[in-house]
């Protein structure tokens, strides 16, 4: 029962959603629309589940003093602070349990939740991803070696696109006469994007699309059951 009923639910729900595309009238259209609205609410609970699970996992790491456990205390503290600030004093546009935090806002300039977001979270996230600029430069130096025809094509396309996507690139070839304008670097870059890149990415898109369709059918028909987890 623990496995069969969920499989039946998946089958019925999947089939109803597909049928409602072709018969959008009652009852299929109505049921499908209602399922989509339910989905939003269940997805909300799923997000809450994710955050509570993160809390649980970190608590577990601290309790059993796993490697670097001291740092996970910081994770929990920052999580609790952010949630408390949000729930007690609300966000920029929503009041919290303790009201609208007018007195704090008059001193700090914004609500605690927004202050943390603007001055800490935003910078942490932006910097975390900006590290990749350094690693991509290092990777280009180490891995971008022209060994075969395939790697040559990759390299040339990358260089032409990088040059074409900068103002310096367009300055380099802006002197070209009108009949050779197709060799102007931004035009070459646009050409690469519009034709061979589109072709390659479209092939991937079609391949991935067919894969997703296949997987969806396997799930609806109950052939693929891994999402239910082990017994």
């Amino acid at each position, binding site marked *: 029962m623990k496995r069969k009923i969920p499989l039946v639910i998946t089958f019925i729900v999947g089939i109803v959603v597909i049928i409602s595309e072709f018969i959008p009238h009652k009852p299929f259209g109505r049921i499908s*629309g209602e399922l*989509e*609205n339910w*989905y*939003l609410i269940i*997805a*909300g609970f*799923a*997000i809450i589940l994710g955050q509570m699970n993160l809390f649980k996992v970190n608590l577990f790491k601290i309790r059993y003093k796993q490697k670097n456990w001291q740092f996970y205390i910081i994770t929990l503290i920052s999580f609790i602070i952010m949630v408390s600030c949000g729930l007690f004093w609300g966000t*920029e*546009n*929503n009041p919290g349990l303790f009201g609208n935090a007018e007195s704090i806002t008059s001193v700090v300039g914004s609500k605690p939740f*927004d202050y943390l*977001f603007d001055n800490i*979270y*935003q*910078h942490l*996230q*932006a910097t*975390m*991803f900006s590290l990749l*600029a*350094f690693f*991509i*430069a*290092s990777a*280009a*130096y*180490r*891995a*971008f*070696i*022209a060994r075969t025809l395939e790697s040559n094509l990759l*390299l040339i396309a*990358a*260089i032409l696109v*990088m*040059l074409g*996507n*900068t*103002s*310096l*690139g*367009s*300055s380099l070839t*802006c002197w070209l006469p009108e009949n050779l304008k197709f060799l102007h670097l*931004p035009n070459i870059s*646009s050409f690469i*994007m*519009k034709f061979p*890149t*589109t072709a390659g*990415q*479209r092939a*991937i*898109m079609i391949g991935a699309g067919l894969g997703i369709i296949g997987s969806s059918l396997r799930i609806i028909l109950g052939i693929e059951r891994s999402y239910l987890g082990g017994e």
Partner: protein
Amino acid sequence: MTEKITRKQIDRRWIFLFMFIGVALPLIFTIGFPIETSENSEIVYDLIDNTPSGSKVILSFDYDPASMPELHPMAEAVMRHCFRKKIKVIVTALWPMGVQMAEDTFSQLKADFPDVSYGRDYVNMGFKAGGIVTLQAMGKNFREVFPKDMNGTPIDELPIMDGINNFNNINFILAFSAGDPGIKQWVQIAHDTYGITVSGGVTGVSAPAVIPYVNEQKQLTGLLAGLKGAAEYERLTKEPGSATKGMDAQSIAHMIIILFIAIGNINYWRNKAKEKRGA
């Protein structure tokens, strides 16, 4: 043998330092390389420029602070253009931080557009989870998905939302997207299911994966790609902003990467020749 050859390489921290300086210097000492516009950016510009005033459009903020340098200038330029053309803007967000991103953009434009009134010309409907399924639900019943705006004001009390029950009275949807859910889902639902014009701006990383949608069927009507796309839009609107300021640094950084690729290749082939001679 490849391992032996690649071992003789410079410490990557020197590359990091060189990169840091290479990006910082052009920001301090601006060069002012000219910016050329591309066909895809012009299509987005024309789409907004040819939209009659009073029309209602959806701007979807599907990104977070990690993509701010690329998508924020784009969002600001596009929203500014919409306000200039007196187009009414409905903001939605498929990413929770998109709500703050939109608010930040709007607050930067408030001073320039004192006539734009919240609830009449602009509204932020907030964040909804669920990606593609929620978009499909929006196409059927917008009010069910967004019963209130981000301030908790019921949708019926917002004049801008009069007559908006689904995507029917929306002129176009423009998504600023950093990944999934984002522009792909908007194309799949809003354009391919409900026939609404969809356009947008994406991060450089996602541009190649999205470009097949820019085709004769107009699944996507134009596309702004990365910081360059944002700078191009700023140029088209003749209002240079932070994207334009960053383009010099972008140029120099690209040249540095190309330089490192060249050095890496020269090193490789020189070491390979040495190994051959030694063998």
